[in-house]
């Protein structure tokens, strides 16, 4: 590896498995990457929505355990989920769940080597955002039809 000309290159030093140093872009580095461009914004969103899904799982466990525990516990859970806070939480959770699912498909496509070029990356990024909005609306139409 040649002598570094720019201090930012320090964030790009990786090692091959034989120990040789190579220049390689490492994980998003806040001082190198513009976090407002689509590539990095969708990347960190995948991680954030994954954490939201994890929190959402706790509420799913509560709902299932309450159903098994009896009518009183189940009524308490249903009361929470139909309260203002519960509805806001479920709405956010629905959007996060669909985003993480759709962007997960994008990640699987990358894993098989498809879609790395910039135009395709932007196209699939927009597809994920539009798909998230469409599926969130569809889910809530199903939910509202079932509720009323």
């Amino acid at each position, binding site marked *: 590896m040649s002598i570094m000309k720019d201090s930012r290159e320090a964030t790009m030093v990786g090692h091959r498995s034989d120990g040789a140093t190579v220049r390689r872009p490492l994980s998003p580095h806040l001082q190198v990457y513009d976090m407002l461009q689509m590539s990095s914004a969708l990347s960190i969103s995948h991680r954030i929505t994954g954490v939201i899904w994890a929190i959402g799982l706790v509420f799913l466990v509560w709902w299932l355990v309450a159903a098994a525990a009896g009518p009183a516990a189940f009524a308490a859970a249903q009361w929470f989920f139909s309260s203002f806070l519960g509805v806001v939480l479920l709405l956010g959770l629905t959007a996060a769940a669909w985003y993480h*699912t759709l962007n997960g498909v994008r990640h699987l496509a990358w894993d098989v080597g498809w879609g790395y070029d910039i135009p395709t990356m932007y196209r699939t990024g927009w597809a994920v955002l539009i798909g998230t909005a469409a599926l969130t609306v569809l889910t809530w139409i199903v939910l509202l039809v079932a509720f009323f």
Partner: protein
Amino acid sequence: MANELAERTTLRSPLGRVRGLGSSQSGVHHWWLMRVTSVALLPLSVWLVFALAGLAGASHAEALAFIGRPFNAVLLLAFLAAAFHHTAYGVQVIIEDYVRAEWGRIGGILAVKGLCVLLWLAASLAVLRIALLRPPAAL
């Protein structure tokens, strides 16, 4: 052979490199299982989200009938297993990325994994209890 040894810049043996298990001794096991569970979760989450949306405002009896139906109970158990596995592995990566101190990193990962196992068991027990303890006639 002598030349090859002179060009090597690492003490790792060629056999060690080709096995590819790396410093963690587990190779791509963690990475691969994230993919396996994500593929499993793809159809399961789509089913679960719409199934739960369809249960909005359901009475206790309706919820028990839904969970207790064998088809739904099996898919729920499969979802819970894949989801908590995926969550434990995913949060582990986040902790490894952001927590610098070793005690915090290892402690955090163990805590998250323990929590995931307990929540998974609690939810699975709830599904099994509803599916097994109610006679089919009551559904």
